């Protein structure tokens, strides 16, 4: 639907610093994400994972540095960037149904004064089908499980038909079936040449889900292909040598031998 992915770098960050109440939470971030990558952002709580993607989306003020999307400022190419916020960031009692939420993904393309058309509804239906939620299209959103809510958010992002996606903890609090379904869709998007930046909180699965990893703890500890970056040394640097985390890593390394979910 979009023009073939061009050669411009999907996401380029230079010297990005973000502060809350004058306390920096993220500093000196330099990053260049190539196209067609499924990138996981991992790091401890308070490492600035969500802050990083919010700053990229222009949702938070930057203290310094710049972010370029496909070689341009985000405001020049808003429709090429999709966003999945954290599930808890919205009020799920809001009087809308599943279809309404997915259709919101189309608003960015509509512009002022224009209304949703048949084509938009068709796209929304397809996106719902891809996350296996089409039978729920007319369901009020408060009557959904956490996993279903997350799928709706993913469908809405799909409806944006973007080339670069930022996703804030799409696996938080979802059931196993949803997790598998989401991983599948993310893989499909990557295979279409789209770039996905995903905040992830679960270390053991991070290794198998993502092509590249960004280890973050207020600044970039490491960024690169997962097999190169996912080392106990890097993780120790990122998590500050917390024993529980390290034992998790040990169990991941052990699980690998016994056949953990294969890398896609």
């Amino acid at each position: 639907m979009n023009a073939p992915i061009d050669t411009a770098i999907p996401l380029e960050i230079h010297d990005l610093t973000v502060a809350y109440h004058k306390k920096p939470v993220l500093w000196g971030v330099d990053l260049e994400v190539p196209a067609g990558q499924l990138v996981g952002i991992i790091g401890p709580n308070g490492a600035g994972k969500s802050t990083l993607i919010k700053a990229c989306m222009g949702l938070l003020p930057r203290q310094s540095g710049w972010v370029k999307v496909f070689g341009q400022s985000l405001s020049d190419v808003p429709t090429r960037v999709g966003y999945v916020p954290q599930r808890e960031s919205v009020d799920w009692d809001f009087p809308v149904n599943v279809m309404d939420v997915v259709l919101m993904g189309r608003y960015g393309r509509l512009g002022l004064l224009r209304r949703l058309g048949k084509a938009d509804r068709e796209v929304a239906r397809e996106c719902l089908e891809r996350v296996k939620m089409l039978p729920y299209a007319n369901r009020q959103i408060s009557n959904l499980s956490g996993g279903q809510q997350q799928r709706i958010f993913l469908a809405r992002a799909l409806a944006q038909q973007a080339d670069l996606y930022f996703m804030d903890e799409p696996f938080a609090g979802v059931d196993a079936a949803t997790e598998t379904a989401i991983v599948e869709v993310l893989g499909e998007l990557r295979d279409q040449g789209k770039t996905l930046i995903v905040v992830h909180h679960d270390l053991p699965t991070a290794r198998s889900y993502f092509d590249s990893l960004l280890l973050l703890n207020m600044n970039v500890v490491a960024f690169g292909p997962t097999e190169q970056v996912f080392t106990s040394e890097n993780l120790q640097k990122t998590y500050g040598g917390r024993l529980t985390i390290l034992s998790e890593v040990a169990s991941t390394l052990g699980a690998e031998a016994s056949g953990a979910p294969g890398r896609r």
Partner: protein
Amino acid sequence: MSELIPSFDWQRVMIDPWTLDLSLYGWIFLMGFCATAACGLVGNYLILRRMALMGDAVSHSVLPGLVIAFLLTDSRGTTPMFLGALVAGILTTVLVESIHRRTRVKQDAAIGIAFTTLFAIGVLLVSLFSNQIDLDAECVLYGEIAFVPLEPLVTLGGVELGPISLVRMVAVLLGVAVLILVFYKELLIASFDEALAKAMRINPTWVHYGLMAVLSVVVVSAFEAVGAILVIAMLILPGATASLLTDRLGVMHFIAIGHAAISAWLGVGLGVWLDCSIGAAMVVGGAFVFGVVWMGTLLTKLKRQRSKPQQSGATVSAPASVS
């Protein structure tokens, strides 16, 4: 007891206002309906955005706006009053936003600071210039909808349209309806998911200020009829009732308008029966409708819970109203 509450005369209360005295109560009903409907439509968004208190704030801070506009122009004409109220309403919004964004004071506290201060400034000005201002404080607080039929009628091209404040209220109601239709998706996404709205270059701050500007206009035009206090009820009751009955935003708007019609009709009846303030009676009518709907939802919930254990066997049923 019979001296306290007048006897209910069906003919006098239910028939006469709509036949013999239609030229009087017709205008009052229409004014009450249009005011409540316009307030209800805007109020729906206040409720969804959890900003019900902003209605309270804007309706109070309109007072200094009116006083200052009066002092500056020395007239009580529509335009200066409207502009004064609008500026005051926007100012309240700006104050609330700046206080809670730039300091650690939370939004509810910021609202409490902003509107009470502005209202106090209004009171101060009224007392300072009391010899120049013939602003009836009681009218500002409670309004007087019964005066609507006494106003001069507006004529357009030889056709009598109606009392001036009603004509204004109808225009405002239509304006609100058109704005909601035109900006439906912007209002929806900015209220539901501010972050996504921002990412899509639909500026939620502008949506917020736009909504507050409309709120100010609605409040000041409903003001004369119902006053600063009762207007708050009209902002919240229709939407609150609608949110009990539906979970679709579009349907909510229609229910709010229906609620406005019923409460205006009940208000006229109650006002005639008890010979009391019709504006207040309309609010009581609206609250009564809310109460009936609430009871209805409680009953259906209870019914559902009764029938459930029978189907699924020995399910432990929790009481309906725990939450």
